[in-house]
Structure formats: C-alpha cells, structure tokens
C-alpha cells in the first residue's frame, strides 16, 4: 500500500486500494476481482482431453491399419484405443463425483452444448471401442465389424470435440482460439495415438504409427504456435505460471520424443518405447497447458475486460452500455 496525500493528488480516478485497478494497461476493474469464474474441473478433465484424443485417433489408426492389412499394428492400436476408451468415462465420473451424474448427461441431446454432444460421442465411441478391440483380438463379438467402424468413425469427433467444448465458453484464451484449438487437439490426438502405438508395437510393424506420431508432433507445434500468435496479448496466459510450465514440458518432451523417434525409433524397441512415452507426455502436457491457460485467463480481469474495451473503442462493437436515452 502506497499511501498518497489526497490534497495533492490530481488523479481524476484514484482509489485507496491499489488493487481497485488492475495494474496493467490502465484497464479498470472492480478491485482487481475476476469478472469470470474459473472452471471447477479438476485434474481428470485435462487427462480426459488426452485419453479422448488417444482413443479417438487410435481407433482410426487401428481401423485403417486393418484395412491396410497391418493386423499387428491394428491390434496394438486397438489396445491403445481401449485403454483410453475405458479411462475416459472413469475420469469423467470421477470429476462429477457419482456415476449417476454421468447418466444424467444423457437426459438430452443438445447441439448447443458440446458437452452434451460430446457425451453422446463418448457413449458411442467409448462403447464401441472395447467391443471393437475385443473383436479385433478375438473375433468373438457378433457384428464386430460394425463396432470397429463405429469406433473409428466416432473416434475422430471424440478427439476434437473437447476443443469445441472449451472454446464454447467465455474464457478468452479458449474462446478466442476456437478456430485453432480443435486442430491443436486433433494434432495432439494424432501424436497421442501414434506415440502410444509406437510404444506398444514392435518397430517393424509401427511405421504408420511413427508417421502419425511425427506428423502429430509437427502439426501440434505448428498449430499451437499459430494459435498463440493469433491470440496475441490474449495468449499471455500461455507464457505464465503452470500453463507455461506445461507448455515448456510439452515442447521439450515433444521435440525430444520426435528426435528420438526419427533417429532410433525404427531400430530400437527401447528407443521406440522411450520416444512413445515422451511424445505421450508431450501430448498430455499440451492439454494441461491449454487447461491451465484457461484458468489463468479467467482469473485476471484484464484478459476479459481489455479486449472487450478495445473492440468498443475501435468501434467494432458497441458494448452493452449506452448513455443516450431512447425516448
């Protein structure tokens, strides 16, 4: 607290408590209080972003590998998909607290709610994936091929809808990135599936998985960079706090994993496993980075008020306040 003498101060608007004005850029706020509420989602949700992507892309990889005739790769990819497919609903239930709360999600189908749509996608994809995987391994499931097709088809939106989910909020760093974020998540899904399958599959049969992992890693890096670039100042939360840490971990692990995969992934099973794990860690970290950036963006009023105020002063938007009486 720096006290000022009221008799000498000429500031037109000053307040006794410095937090009454957010420090940066002269943006006014209410005692520095956040305008938005941070989400209440806990650790399960970013993990689910990862497992959902893993399941979705792995199903597709497995399905396509089958088509290509690479059954070994397909079976391993189905395993990866199944791991994610089983974990995903468990994570969501854990976040909600009780199983019946997940069932409650299925009261309705609402296009305006990516979570509602996503719940149905998850039900279908998550339901079909284990069947598909079991069928791929055993052939015991009647109509198994439909399960496999379904899993592969619904796997794709399962991998990206979570981006729509977070984009469809008031949180600036998410919402402003709504065009790019699904690609970041899609890339991440590709990297996750590729990495997991690389780790599970003997290198000789894993070429498509390696390509997928590397492509995902490169696309992820590019789309993330593009997203942050487009966010401009709004992207600051990515450079702060936990979001920045996860971002750095993601980049380092991603680069290291990719490098290792390119250099030794074909020859060494151990290196393949290691790079698969590094890339998985990178994919998970990236999701965490996005997740945390959202929290940080919500908790600082300047990210909420700043862009809105700027758009008003640029004349792009009229804002929600009006001084002229309409009578």
């Amino acid at each position, binding site marked *: 607290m720096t006290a000022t003498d*009221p008799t000498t101060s000429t500031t037109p608007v000053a307040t006794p408590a410095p937090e009454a004005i957010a420090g940066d850029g002269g943006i006014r706020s209410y005692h520095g209080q956040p305008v938005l509420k941070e989400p209440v989602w806990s650790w399960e949700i970013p993990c689910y972003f990862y497992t959902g992507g893993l399941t979705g892309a792995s199903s597709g990889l497995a399905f396509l590998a089958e088509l290509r005739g690479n059954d070994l790769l397909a079976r391993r990819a189905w395993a990866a998909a199944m791991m994610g497919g089983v974990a995903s609903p468990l994570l969501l239930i854990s976040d909600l607290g009780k199983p019946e709360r997940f069932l409650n999600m299925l009261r309705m189908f609402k296009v305006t709610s990516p979570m509602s749509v996503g719940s149905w996608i998850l039900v279908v994809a998550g339901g079909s994936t284990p069947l598909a995987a079991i069928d791929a391994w055993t052939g015991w499931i009647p109509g198994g091929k439909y399960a496999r097709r379904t899993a592969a088809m619904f796997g794709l939106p399962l991998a990206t809808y979570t981006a729509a989910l977070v984009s469809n909020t008031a949180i600036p760093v998410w919402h402003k990135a709504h065009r790019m974020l699904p690609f970041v998540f899609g890339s991440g899904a590709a990297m996750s599936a590729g990495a997991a399958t690389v780790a599970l599959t003997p290198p000789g049969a894993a070429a498509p998985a390696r390509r997928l992992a590397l492509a995902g890693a490169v696309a992820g890096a590019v789309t993330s960079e593009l997203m942050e670039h487009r966010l401009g100042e709004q992207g600051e939360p990515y450079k702060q706090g936990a979001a920045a840490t996860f971002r750095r971990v993601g980049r380092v692990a991603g680069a290291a994993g990719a490098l290792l995969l390119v250099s030794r992934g074909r020859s060494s099973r151990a290196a393949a496993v290691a790079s698969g794990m590094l890339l998985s860690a990178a994919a998970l970290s990236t999701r965490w980075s996005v997740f945390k950036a959202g929290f940080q963006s919500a908790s600082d009023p300047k990210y909420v008020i700043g862009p809105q105020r700027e758009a008003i002063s640029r004349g792009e938007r009229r804002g929600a306040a009006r001084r002229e009486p309409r009578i």
Partner: protein
Amino acid sequence: MGSNMAEQHPVGFQWVMEAHERGAKYIHVDPRFTRTSAMADRHVPIRAGTDIAFLGGVINYIFEHDAWFREYVQHYTNGPVIVREDYVDAEDAAGMFSGWDPEHGAYQIESWGYDETSHEAAGGKKEQQGDVSGEQAQGAHGMKLERGNPPNIDNSMQHPRCVLQILKRHFARYTPQVVSEICGCSERDFLAVARALCENSGRERTSAIVYSVGWTQHTVGVQNIRAASIVQMLLGNMGRPGGGILALRGHANIQGSTDIPTLYNILPGYIPMPHPTSGPDLDKFIELNGPDTGAWGNLKNYMVSLLKAWWGDAATDENNYGYDYLPRIDGDHSHYPMMVKMLDGGVQGMFCVGQNPTVGSANSKLMRLALAKLDWLVVRDFQPTESALFWKDSPEHESGETRAEDIQTEVFFLPCAAHTEKDGNFTNTQRLLQWHWKALDPPGDARSELHWIYHLGKAVRDKLADSEDPRDRPILDLTWDYPVEGPHQEPNAEAVLQEINGRGPDGKMLSTYEELKDDGSTACGSWIHCGIYKDGVNQSARKKPGQDQNWIAHEWGWAWPKDVRILYNRASADPDGKPWSERKRYVWWDGADDKWTSLGDSPDFPAQKEPSFEPEEDAKAMEAISGDKPFILHPDGRAWLFAPSGLVDGPLPTHYEPQETPFQNALYPQQQNPTRQEFPRPENPYHPVGSPVFPYVLSTWRLTEHHTSGAMSRTVPYLAELQPEFFCEVSPALAAERGLEHGGWATIVTARSAVEARVLVTDRIKPLQIEGRPTYRVGMPYHWGGVGIVTGDSANDLLPLVLDNNVHISEYKVATCDIRPGRRPRGPARLKLVEEYRQRAGVRVS
C-alpha cells in the same frame, strides 16, 4: 447532522431519497463520509465534537441575514421574554454562565430565570440537586408563572435583556471564519448549509434536522440538540409538516424505554422520581415538580392515577395514594456511576436484560472488572453474551488480571423470547406505538420478559407473603394480578396495556389524559399513553394499510400523546389559526365548526380552544395556555430559545471542547463543559488535552450490517459474513505517517486499553485542517466482542467514562488515541504497552 441515516435507518431513509427525488435539498454535516454522505447533495465534514460551533454559526448567520421568522418567534417562542438582570452570559464570563458554584461544581440557576420571577419560581422546581439528573435537578417541566405569562415581555424584541437580543450577542462571535477554524470545514461549505436552511424555511417551506447518537454521545450532548432547536425555532420549523428535529433512535423500543422507562430518575410519562425533600407529602412533591400552568399543571392527576394503577385499593387518600411507597433518589444512580459503585463492591446483584455492557458500554474493561465484584448476575438474551461469559472468557483473563476461579459471582443465564414469540408494543423513533402479535410460543425455557418479571414478582411476593416488615408492604400491596394463558402461563400483554391506558371510575377505558383525576377515581399507568386503549380497542394494533390512507396514516398504530403524529402541531397555523401557507397546511382553526381540524392528525391542542383565547386570572394548567401558544408542555406555552430551567450546563449552548481533544477551546478560556461528570481513577484515566502521545481523534460508530454490541448480529450467519472482522478506518495520509498497511493489522492504544483491528485505508476519512495542521482521525465500528460467529476486540475498551451531566450519557464519539502498525501484544504485554503509554503521556491515574 450527527446521524448516519442511510446506514443505521435504511428503510426510514427511503423517505429522504423520495423527497430528494422530488427536489428536496439534502445535506449531510458529519465528521465521516458515510453511505449517508454518498447520497447527499453536499457532505460537509466537521471535526467530531464541534457541532455547537457549527450550529452557533448558523444561528449567527440567521441573525446576520435577518432570516428569522419574526411572527413565529414573537408569538411561539420566548424570544420576546426579558430575562433577569443578574443573568451573565458565557460571552461575558470566559465561557461560564452566572451562578457557578465552584464548591459543588454546579450552577445555581436562579439568575437564568425570566425577569421578575422569584428565586424558586425562576429556577423551576428544586426538589432535587445538581447531582441528580439534570432534567429533574433543575425543574424540567418549568417554573411558576401567573396565567402562563412571563412577567416582562418586549414584543418588539429590542430590549437588551430580551431573549432574542441575548441570543444574538451569545452567538455573535460564531462567524463563518470561526466555524471554519473550529470545525475544519470550508467557509464555503458552511455558508452553503446556512443559506440552504434559511432559503428552505418560512411560510412556504420547512426544513428538518435529523440527528442520532452522533449528537447525544458527547459531554455536550443535550446542548447539541438545543442548538438545533434554536435554529429550528428561529426559522419557524417546529410543529410543522416537513420540519422538526428528528431523533433517529437506534433500537426498536428505545423511545418506549424512556416513555415508560426503565430509568432510575423518572416514572412513566416523564414524571420525576421523588427526592427525599418532599418527605411523605404528595402535595409537596407536586408543588416542587410541576409548574401550575401548561399540561404539566395537572401533574397531580397523572401521579395519583399512576399510584392507583400500581397500588390499587391500597392507594388511598389517607396514605397519599401510596406515594411513600416509592423509593427516593438523592444522587446519580444511573448506569455508569452504578458500575463504578459496583467496581468498589457497593452493588451485590445485577440484571442484564437484553443488554451487553461488556461490549456496548464505554470503558467496557471497567464493566467487566465491575461485574466480577458482584455476588450475583442475571443475564437474559438469545445466547450467552460476553456479559454472561465475562467470568469464562475475557481479555483480562488473557492478560492475567483475572481468573475464573477468583470470580465469586454467581451467574444465571435465562434464554429470552424473540419478538415473534410475544405480544407487545415497540415505540418507534417518532413516538408511534406499533403492536406486534405473537406468532408462536418460545422454545424450551425461553420466555418473554413479561413472563419473567411477572413470575419473578410472584415468587418474591409469595416468599414475602407473611412478612410484617413495612418495607415489604409496597411489594405485597402491588396490583400484580394479570390474566395468564397458554402452556407457559404467559401474562396477557393487552391486560398490561389496558392498565397503562387507564380506567375510569366505572372501570371503562379512558380516552385521553385530560380525563385523569387527582381524587383516586382514575387509575392510569402512563398518562401520556392514556387513550391507547380508547373505546376498549387496542389502538396500537390498528393496521389499516398505508395505501388506503393519506400520508399521515393516522389509522396505523397509535402515537402518544393523544395519537398526535406531529407534536406541537398548533404551530403549523399562524397565531390566528390560519395555515402559514396553503402548501404547508396541516392543523388549522375551523371557524365554522369552532374547532381545530387537520389533514388527518390529532391536533396537539385543546380541540375547542379558540386562537384568540386569553386565560383568566388564576387560571391553572391548560386553562392558563393562550390560544396562540402551541408548546403546551411549557408553562408559558412558548418554545424556549433560552432555557430558564431544565438544564444543568447553561441556558444556551456554548462551544466546549470534548474531554479529550488535540485542541484548546478557540472561543473561551473554559476548555470543556464545566459540568461534565468525570470518574478519574486508575481504571478510567483521561488523556491530557493536546497530548502528543495520543495525537489522533478516535470515534466509534456502527455499521448497517451489525447491531450495537453484536448480540443480535454477530450470532446471525447472514449478517456475520457481511462484516466479519473488527476494523479501523484511517486516511491514506495517516497510514503513511504511521506505516499502516491496507488490509493489515493495527493496534489502537489509549490509556484505558489497547485493541487490534484490521486496517481499512480510505479517502472517506479525510484529514481536516484545524489550526493550520491536519488532524487525523481513527474510526472504528464497535460491534465486536469475544462471542458469536465472528469475533474481535471491542472498540469500547478504549473509551473513558465521561458524561453529559444533563443525562449521564458518555462521550463515545470523541476521544484521543495513538495507532501503530501490527497486532497488539498478547498476555500481560498488552497491559505493559498501555502502562508505557500512560507514563509517556503523564496520564493522571487517580
């Protein structure tokens, strides 16, 4: 002024807001910028304790600008009355009035009387002495006058000894410049207020002044209000709609608690408690206490009816209607002196009934130490308060001064009923009694006070039933037979109200106090409430919806006396009985019907007394009041610009500094009110004037979100969370000077104690420039104590006991203090800190 209406009376404040919306000007003169100031057209900050200087300035302005309402002043006030020759004004005697008796530290007030009135008559009634409450000590209800007329009157108001000229001289030095120097406000602000008041008063317009304990809690409390009443009388704002001086009381029935008092010095209806002087002689009591003229001229009717209500058949003409059953007062037996007496071991038992003195009374540490000297204590409340638990948890336990095992006080805690669990009346701030109905029975052992006192009384009577001791007769002869009902044997509150209303010889309910007799044929528990059960109907329970009535809403509740909503409303008409203006029409003489009529209020005047009425020779009581004298409680029917009796500290308000202040009195050599009551002793030391060790002015106050000592708010979840912690408010400049951190902790120290509070640095508490230097203030709400959902130190621990001797109310609003960053020391170190301050400041401790 001296009120924070928006915060303390938010719902009443809707009317201010509404008036403001319609164009009324609204000004807040107060040391603090509060939520009330935030709404005002203008906020004028003044130094706490300088209200008389400010109002004196307004009075001077009124004279300077010839803005006073001549016709009103001439006919309705004592402005034309000539005062005795031996009267000496404070202006001419260094701030002291004539009659000072240094031996007793009190004024002999004879010289303040009207010219050509005798000693006794002029001084009013002198049954009691200066050591008793001022109101009674100096004859509150006035002096003996022939036909209600002061002997010497100069209607031109030019006589140098007429009240108006005395007033002019008394306030001549209260110029805008002096006001600005003493109060710390700008001359511009002051002049804006004075101008606004004058411009908005007169025939067409009226102004109201609202005050609260910001005025009463000073060593000059009564004179603060007197100063305002002088302004309002000069401007003709009394007894008229939109005018008046409105006391905003802080508690549901605090007005009712003085009307039907639990106060030591008065009986119901402001009848004085007897003093030994009159002995067993009722007539002597009447002679000494009631003037012959005006409404008080019938004191005997009121008194005999009261005695009949209390002692029924045992009250007979032979035994003076039981007058001798009443205990006598011969000193100040009010709360604070009693607590000091208790501290010295002079009191055995105490009842705290819905009251929490260890947080709410000044110098609450002294209160706790005193309670520990009791043999027994009874506390009634919702849950055990700090006062009920003083033996268990107290700051003195923490500092090692007391221990539970050393405290020999027996303590009873009795759970009380809530307002929803009993029938009864609250009297609101405008004297309106509103009946509240019981909604359900209280839980468990919780009982109403009516139940408690009735059954306690019964138990005492049963135990004494066989007593032959004459001192037990008053208890045994008492009429104590109320119908009871329900599972708890709850006494019927309406039966009590009927007794208060009073019955005639036929047992029927009386309609007005004018029907009371002095021959024992009427019984009435409180003469001012006579009529509240008129026609056998509980008038206070009338609830005709406001929307179905005009703005006076006369059929909602009942106001004493005689259901009058605006007191002295005869003054809303001119001497001839015509409204002063069409716009301000309220009560007027209806020549066609030969009676006073009104927009819907009861005229506060005999209904058929013509405006031209002149009293006959030897007329007494109301018969001695002329038709153009509205102020019927005074023996001359006039409002008193100059108070010839009734006050112990002077007939006119005079600027004195508070007990503790950084400044010397800029107007008089006499620094403080000479009659203030001090209690110098180790538990209650005072700071020297201008002490550099205690350089800051300390004030205590309340918040919207809490209620007094917090017993009704710190225990209520939704209120507790709104203001959860004890805090102090300081200006940024003081924070810088003392290194206080916003949001951090500060320790506030006086010679009484040290407390800790969170720091709220705010521009709202601006330093004022006095004598060329800024005065810094520390303000604190006083709601916290050790019990409840939210707890904290008590601000009242810091304050000294020093009283206005008129009414024995302590000076809560101003003291001096020091403030330092950080939390207070724990344990004995707290005492050491206070001791160190005492020594540095050279505080006299005995």
